[in-house]
């Protein structure tokens, strides 16, 4: 009898294969632990079927790719010069090996992005942007009373938003006390 690798108690009846860092692991679990695994994998984050999307995309492109293979000096399956990621590793897992891979495999990634994303140009935040504002917000030195009151009021608003009325009452008392001190 093979014991479940997680609880080490019941007989392992389910084998789950998973790919982690390119290595295929097989884990043997009892039915209870397998159900738990399913639960946790789910409760955590959605997994998008990028492999299957990639596969269908590659099938669509195979005609084009075949003709490219005939072109001298141009190979579809060249490895990433920076990290060594092979094209087959990328197409098998949907995972890239470094930032430069996006250039290396751009022929595949561009049509993929058009299919899975809402656009091809980033419109969100950038490194360093607003960082001063955010820093001063999170780092505000609350040494003097006015700052401390301001901070408490912010927490009060949060507590009310969160419907944490007990905490809100506590904060209100603290603010009233500090405001009293401030006027002295």
């Amino acid at each position, binding site marked *: 009898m093979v014991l479940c690798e997680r609880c080490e108690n019941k007989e392992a009846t389910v084998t789950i294969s998973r790919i982690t860092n390119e290595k295929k692991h097989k884990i043997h679990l009892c039915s209870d632990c397998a159900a738990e695994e399913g639960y946790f994998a789910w409760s955590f*984050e959605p997994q998008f079927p990028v492999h299957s999307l990639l596969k269908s995309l590659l099938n669509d492109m195979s005609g084009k790719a075949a003709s490219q293979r005939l072109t001298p000096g141009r190979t579809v399956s060249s490895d990433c010069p920076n990290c060594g990621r092979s094209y087959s590793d990328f197409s098998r897992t949907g995972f890239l090996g470094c930032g430069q891979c996006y250039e290396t495999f751009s022929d595949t990634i561009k049509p993929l992005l058009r299919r899975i994303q809402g*656009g*091809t*140009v980033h419109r969100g935040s950038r490194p360093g942007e607003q960082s001063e504002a955010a820093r001063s917000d999170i780092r505000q030195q609350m040494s003097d009373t006015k700052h401390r009151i301001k901070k408490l009021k912010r927490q009060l608003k949060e507590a009310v938003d*969160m419907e944490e009325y007990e905490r809100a009452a506590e904060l209100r008392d603290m603010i009233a006390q500090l405001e009293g001190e401030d006027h002295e």
Partner: protein
Amino acid sequence: MSEKQAPFAERSSFWMRGGGPSADVIVSTRVRLARNHKNVPFPPEMAKEHAEQVLSLARDLNDCLRRDSEGEYVFDFWPLSELDETDRWVLVEKHLVSPQLVKTAALSGVILRSDDAVSIMINEEDHFRIQCLFPGLNLTHSRELAQQVDHILHEVVNCAFDEQLGYLTTCPTNLGTGMRSSVMAHLPGLVMLNRLEDVISGLSEIGATVRGLYGEGTESRGDLFQISNRITLGQSESEICANLQAVIGEIVRKERSAREEAYGRRRDELEDKVFRAYGILTNARMIETKEAMRLLSALKLGRDLNIVTHVSQDLFSQMMIRMRPALIQSRAGTSLDPRQRDIRRASLIRNALLDS
């Protein structure tokens, strides 16, 4: 089993305290940002020394967060290699790290804020995954907190970023903002009336995804579903969250009306289901996770419809987490076989209900 219990085992995570906006339908909100170091290969191509380099940056980040945090919060860094198997699974059971992170425990880690509202996974699919967890429907708070942590990350880590593509992630499904926002929704009303399919069909066209649990009946999984944004590139963080908020608002509205309709149409059946759940949970001496989950879901519905009133607001979130195997064993301080766990699980829930 370690001598000393890890401090994150017994403490109540912020999201587990329940409440928050739309708490009758939305159990919790998570926003996560994926970030990678510019000059280090991503985890799939990472050598051991690269992984160690990232872990060392995580230590620096932890120091920065500690210095910057406002008084009441403390951050701690846990290399998973320094935790025993039970404590690693406790992190998974509290939704703070993924099962995948545990699989690579030798070279992975996690930074936790003392209320677990911030959890940063190190060397998972990406080098850094900042996650913020709130109770109820709290996309804005979660996103803002995640972005604050992100700003501090940039002081320590030179992130892989491209002018056109945004943040470069291991998987192209996370490219751009690197942001995935999701909520855990309790949808027993839509399940009862068989309306879930209608509600979720067509959501993917507007950039959202709903996921339930695999296989078996959703009932045994507590009627829980996860709703998240699908798109990460081409929209700003706040646009993505606003779109998701609209989708979720609609689902919340439909779930509430489904509950009222079900209650109106089959009042006796529904009350019977709720009171049976209450009866079993307050009396059972042994209970399996699946059965407990099904009954807790019925009890939560009963509470939200005011069929039962003497059940505390956080019971569902607390119990669905605390009854899991690793947490039960962590609390017992010893490993337990499934039968012993069933006994402890029954007593845990019984006592929580009798206290509330």
